[in-house]
């Protein structure tokens, strides 16, 4: 960990194109092509590493990366010991409770009026902590079934009547005949930093944060010019 150098962890997948764009605007360009298998990239002013979104907080909390970009959804679920520095405002999605259309009325009742529903509901999710907290706070007796992904399959396969998932466009839900019962929260991409690096490399991280802040404002300003 040289002092004059930042290691930046970027998430593979959905958030990568916007992450690269905003990094380039902030003066940290990196020529990573979509679908690349190369996971570490050296540039003159930073070293970029690519990791699965769920692993970004792990790399950062151990100090293997100084900073990283990751969705708030992952931060809430993982609850790792990292500093959350900036809302990058892209990658918007919502945490929702969803159920099959045919079951919507019942599901709505189960979630909104827990005192009147007996029994235990099964909930399939990629976000067991988020789901558990939500149902516990509402006083709903729920059995949380953790899945690695593809939660929308669970109701069709008869695994669980209700799912907790993140949605951005809602297309996946629609195509699987699921409807949103209620919203738990929203999520956008965040800049996170390692606790030690935050102080030891504060000048560099501060400069990056300010450049990113300007890049976000510039991008938002650019959008407003578009008519309509």
């Amino acid at each position, binding site marked *: *960990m040289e*002092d004059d150098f930042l290691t930046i962890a970027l998430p593979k997948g959905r958030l990568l194109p916007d992450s690269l764009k905003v990094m380039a605007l902030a003066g940290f360009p990196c020529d990573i092509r979509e679908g690349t298998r190369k996971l570490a990239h050296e540039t003159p002013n930073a070293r970029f590493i690519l990791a699965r979104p769920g692993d970004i907080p792990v790399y950062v*909390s*151990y*100090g293997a990366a100084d900073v990283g970009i990751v969705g708030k959804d992952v931060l809430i679920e993982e*609850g*790792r*010991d*990292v*500093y*959350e*520095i*900036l*809302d990058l405002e892209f990658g918007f999605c919502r945490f929702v409770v969803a159920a099959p259309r045919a079951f919507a009325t019942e599901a709505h009742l189960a979630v909104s009026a827990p005192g009147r529903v007996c029994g235990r509901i099964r909930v399939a999710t990629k976000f067991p902590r988020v789901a558990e907290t939500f149902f516990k706070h509402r006083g709903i007796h729920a059995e949380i079934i953790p899945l690695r992904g593809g939660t929308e399959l669970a109701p069709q396969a008869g695994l669980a009547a209700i799912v907790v998932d993140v949605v951005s466009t809602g297309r996946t839900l629609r195509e699987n005949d699921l409807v949103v019962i209620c919203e738990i929260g929203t999520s956008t991409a*965040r800049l996170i*930093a*390692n*606790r*030690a690096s*935050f*102080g*030891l490399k*504060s*000048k560099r*991280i*501060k400069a990056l*944060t300010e450049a990113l802040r300007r890049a976000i404002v510039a991008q938002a300003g650019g959008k407003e010019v578009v008519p309509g």
Partner: protein
Amino acid sequence: MQYLAQGTCYLFQPESQKRRDLEASLANLLLSEGYQEVVLPVVQAHDPDTPRPLRKMVDAAYKFVDYRGQVMALRSDMTEAVASLASHELRDIGRPLRLFYSGSVFRARRPRWAGMVESYQVGAEIVGIAAPEGDVEILSLVARCLKAARIAGFQLRMGHVGIMESVMDFGGMDEKQKTELRLALVSRDLVHVERLIEGIVIPRACRLFLKQILQFPDGEDVLEAARDLASYDDSRRTAEALSELEGIISGASACGIGDFIQLDLGLIRDLEYYSGMIFEAYAPGCGGPIAGGGRYDGLLKILGHAEGAVGFALDMQQVLNTLRKADGNIALHIGEL
């Protein structure tokens, strides 16, 4: 069939040797500075009516029932154990009381975290000493311990609980808002802190100060904002906390450790018993804090013997990890048995 529990580990040569040597040199240093060693029991009786500032540790402690049905716990915090010893068994011993210790503490971790259940600490406490004198002594002791351990490029990130608390009171924040702000600051969720202070009605000086601590730790600007705020706060609490902190800063500079200190008034530690100066030590390659500590006068008051106390603890595994990374060796140390 026995197997290794999650969050525990074996320690082999040469790391075990290194830890032993390190501990010996730290013990010699502490003895030469006038600290007496105390070996603390691993098993403690559990008190179900634990006051709130200690709640967090009590909740994280491993508990079991002894042969009489009494609930026992593995010690989860050395500072608490020393404070309890000082205010009961050693309450009539002359002050200031300087003690040091080494040993494991045990804290339950969330299952999916890789954090260790057992961590080995070396630490020291001074009981019966006021600020800034005791605080400066502890800070300089930590710096000397880290130097003795050959940790390069370390930094002592320092804040003051009293300043943040008086700012929150001055801002007229209610308990719920205070708790939310504290929690957001512990995890440095700056996005949440910013939204929180945007969403509440507080005096302008208060808002400016909180915005300033959202910036990165670097000292002068945040001190300026704190001074400005103190001039509006009629309760004088901000001013008192601030002058205590300034006393510590100048004391630290006078004993030659000023360069190691980084001021960070947004620093809040995960333990609720701190009441004054707090700090965490970091070094390149360490990931998390390698040492931490602060002033906990409030804890002794709760234990029934109000007096000033300040201390620190070094996480030996973090020290070893940092040394190993500094050696450029991220592979396992596997010695010949």
